[in-house]
C-alpha cells in the first residue's frame, strides 16, 4: 500500500508536468487544428534559459526565491517571444495551406530549435545548480518532497486558472468562438489573428514554467529533452481529447500515473519477462484502447468536420 501510494505520488507529479505541456498542444490544436510539434522544444528552451539564469544569479549570490521567480520570468518572456514569432513567421502564412504543410513546418521548427539550442548550450547535459535542499514530507507512507508538492500545486493552480480564464474572460470567449469557427468569429468582430497570437502566448508561457519545473525536478537539461517530453505531452493531449483543455489536464495526469504504475508493476505482472523499460507499452496501449473506443479522446467532443 505504501508502495502504491508512492507510485501514485510519482505519477501525479510527473503527470502534472505532462499536463502543463499538453495544454500548449491542445490549445493550439483547438483553435488552429494544427499540431504544433515545436511546442516540446519551446519547453526545452524555457528549461535551458532558466538553467542559465539560475547559474548566473546563483553565482551572484541571489537568494533562492528571487532567483526562481526571475528564472521563471525570463524563461516565460523568451518563450513567449519565440512562440509568437514562430506563429507569425512559420504558421500564419500557411493558415490556408493544405494541412500537411504547417505540420511539416512545425517539425522543421522543432529541429531548428533543437539545433539552435545545441549551438547555444552545447550538446552535453547541463546541470541545474541545486537551489533548495529538498525536505521530505511523509503522506500515507509515501515520501513527498516540498519541491514535488510545489510543482503539483502550481501546475493545478495554472490549469484551474486557465480553465477559469477561458470560461469567463472576454478573451476566453473570443478563443472559444475562434475554435468553433474562425470565419464566423471574424465576422462577429473577433480579431482572430490576435486571438491566435494570444493562444501562443499562453501556451508558450505555460510551457516555460513546465520547462523550469522539469529542470528543478530532475536537476539537468539537454537540447534534446523537448522531444520525448513533447511526444508524451502530445499523447496526453490526444488521450484526453485534443482540443479540449480540461481533457489535456486529465490526459496528462492519467498518463503520468499509468507510466508510474506500469514501471512499478510490469515486472511482477509479466513474471519478469518485460522490465520497467517497457512501461511505454502500457501508456500507448491505453491510448490505442481509448482511441478505438472513443476516437475523439476521453473528453473530446466532435467539433463537426472543421478539424
Amino acid at each position, binding site marked *: 500500500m*505504501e*508502495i502504491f501510494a*508512492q*507510485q501514485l505520488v*510519482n*505519477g501525479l507529479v*510527473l503527470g502534472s508536468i505532462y499536463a502543463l505541456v499538453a495544454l500548449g498542444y491542445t490549445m493550439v490544436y483547438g483553435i488552429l*487544428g494544427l*499540431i504544433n*510539434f515545436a511546442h516540446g522544444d519551446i519547453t526545452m528552451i524555457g528549461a535551458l534559459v532558466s538553467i542559465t539564469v539560475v547559474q548566473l544569479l546563483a553565482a551572484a549570490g541571489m537568494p533562492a526565491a528571487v532567483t526562481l521567480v526571475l528564472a521563471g520570468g525570463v524563461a516565460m518572456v523568451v518563450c513567449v517571444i519565440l512562440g509568437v514569432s514562430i506563429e507569425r513567421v512559420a504558421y500564419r502564412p500557411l493558415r490556408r495551406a493544405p*494541412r*500537411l504543410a504547417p*505540420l*511539416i513546418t512545425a*517539425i522543421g521548427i*522543432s*529541429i531548428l530549435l533543437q539545433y539552435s539550442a*545545441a549551438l547555444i548550450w*552545447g*550538446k*552535453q*547535459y547541463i*546541470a541545474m545548480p*541545486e537551489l533548495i*535542499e*529538498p525536505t*521530505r514530507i511523509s503522506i500515507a507512507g509515501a*515520501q513527498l*518532497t516540498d519541491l*514535488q508538492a510545489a510543482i503539483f500545486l502550481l501546475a493545478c493552480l495554472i490549469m484551474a486558472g486557465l480553465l477559469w480564464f477561458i470560461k469567463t474572460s472576454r478573451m476566453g470567449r473570443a478563443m472559444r468562438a475562434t475554435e468553433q469557427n474562425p470565419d464566423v468569429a471574424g465576422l462577429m468582430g473577433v480579431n482572430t489573428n490576435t486571438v491566435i497570437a494570444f493562444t501562443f502566448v499562453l501556451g508558450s508561457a505555460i510551457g516555460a514554467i513546465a520547462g523550469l519545473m522539469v529542470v528543478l525536478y*530532475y*536537476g*539537468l537539461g*539537454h537540447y534534446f*529533452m523537448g*522531444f*520525448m517530453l513533447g*511526444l508524451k505531452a502530445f499523447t496526453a493531449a*490526444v488521450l484526453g481529447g*485534443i482540443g479540449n483543455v480540461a481533457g489535456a489536464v486529465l490526459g496528462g495526469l492519467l498518463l503520468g500515473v499509468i*507510466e*508510474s*504504475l*506500469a*514501471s*512499478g*508493476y510490469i*515486472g511482477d505482472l509479466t513474471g*519478469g519477462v518485460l*522490465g*520497467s*523499460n517497457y*512501461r511505454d507499452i502500457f501508456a500507448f496501449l491505453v491510448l490505442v484502447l481509448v*482511441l478505438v473506443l472513443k*476516437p*475523439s*479522446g476521453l473528453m*473530446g467532443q466532435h467539433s463537426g*468536420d472543421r*478539424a
Partner: protein
Amino acid sequence: MQMHSLRHTAAALITGALIAGCGQDAPAPKAAAPAAPQMLTIKIGSASPLTGPQAHIGVDIRNGVQLAIEDANTANIEIGGKKARFEMVAEDDEANPTKATTVAQKLVDAKVAAVVGHFNSGASIPASKIYSDAGIPQISPSSTNPKYTQQGFKTTFRVVAHDDQQGPTLARFAAKTLQAKRVAVIDDSTAYGQGLADAFEKTIKEQNIEVVAREHTTDKDTDFRAILTKIKGNKPDLIMFGGIDPQAAPMIKQMKELGIKAGFIGGDGMQTPNFIKIAGDASDGAMASIPGLPKEQMPGGTAFLEKYKAKFGQEVELFAPMGYDAVMVFIDAMKRAGSADPAKFLPEIGKTNYQGVIGPIAFDDKGDLVNGPITIYVVKDGAWKPLETVKPDAAAAGK
C-alpha cells in the same frame, strides 16, 4: 478526421526522426602538407562521441590520441628506416551504433593504419567487423563489454579491463568490503550497462547474496522514481547501476528523495566529475569502479596529467591516458615490424610488452589487457576518491 490527422502525424514523426538522425559530422582535420620524399605519413584514426551527452568523455579520448601523435612526431620516430610522420583522423560516432559503422567505413576509406576507438561498447562492437574486414587493428581505450574481443577477430584489442572482470570485481567488493546482503540491480539496456550489470549479478549470486530486484531503464530516461519506489519495497541494502552519468546522477538524487538508504554502486560510466555536478550533495557516498589505476597513481600519471592540462587547459576526464597509450602501442608494434602496413604490424600488437602511462600493457590471445587493475572510488566531499585497487585475476584466484 481525427484518425486521419494522427496518421499524418505518425508519418511526419518518422520523417522527423529520420531527419534528426542525420547529425553533422565533426570536421575532419585538414589534409597535411605533401610529405617529403623519404617521409612516411601514417594516419591513425580516433573514433569516439564528440557531440551528444557523452561528448566530454569522447573528446577526452581524442585529446589523448592527439597528444600521443604530437609526442611521436616530436620524437622523430623512424619506421623501417624511413622518418615517420603521424596524423590523426578524428571522427564523431555520436555514441550511436549505426553512426559508428559509418564512421568506421570512413576511417577505412581514409586509409588509416590503425584506429583508437570506440568509446562505447555498443559502438566498438559493430565497428569492429568493418575494421576486421579491412585488416585494420583497433584498440578500444574504454569499451568494457566482453563480447567486443570474443567475436574471433584478430584486429580487436583493448587497454581496459572488461566487464567480466569489472562486474565481478564490483560484486566481490560488495560482498567482502560492503557486506551487502540484499542487492538490487538496474541497467540502462545498452550493451555496456546491461553487460556490466549481468556480470555483476552473476557473481553476486555466486556469493550467495540475494538479488532482490532486477530492473531496466533506458539511456534516455531521467525519471527513475517508479523503478526506485518498486525497489524500495524490496528493501535492498545496496543498489547497483550499470549505466552512465546522465542517468546515474538523477537516479541517486531521486533515491535520496524517496528516502532509500541503500548504498549506490556502479561502473566506470558514472565515475565522472559530471556525476557529482548533477547529483550535488546526493552523490556523497556513491561508489564506482574504474578499470585501471587512479590517474594520479598511474606509473606515468603525474607527468601525463600536467602535460594534458598544459595542452588543453582542462583536467583529464577519464580515458585520455588509455587513448594515448593505444597510439603508443600501435607505434611500438610498427617499429618492431619495421612497417606501417597493417598486415605487417598487426601480428606484432599481440606480442606487445609496453610500459605505458597506465602501466604495463600486454594482451592475451583474445586481445584483452592482461591483468588490468580495477580501482573502486567513492564520492567524498564532492570528489571521487580512490578506495581500493584490485587486480581482477588476483581477486578471482583469491575467491
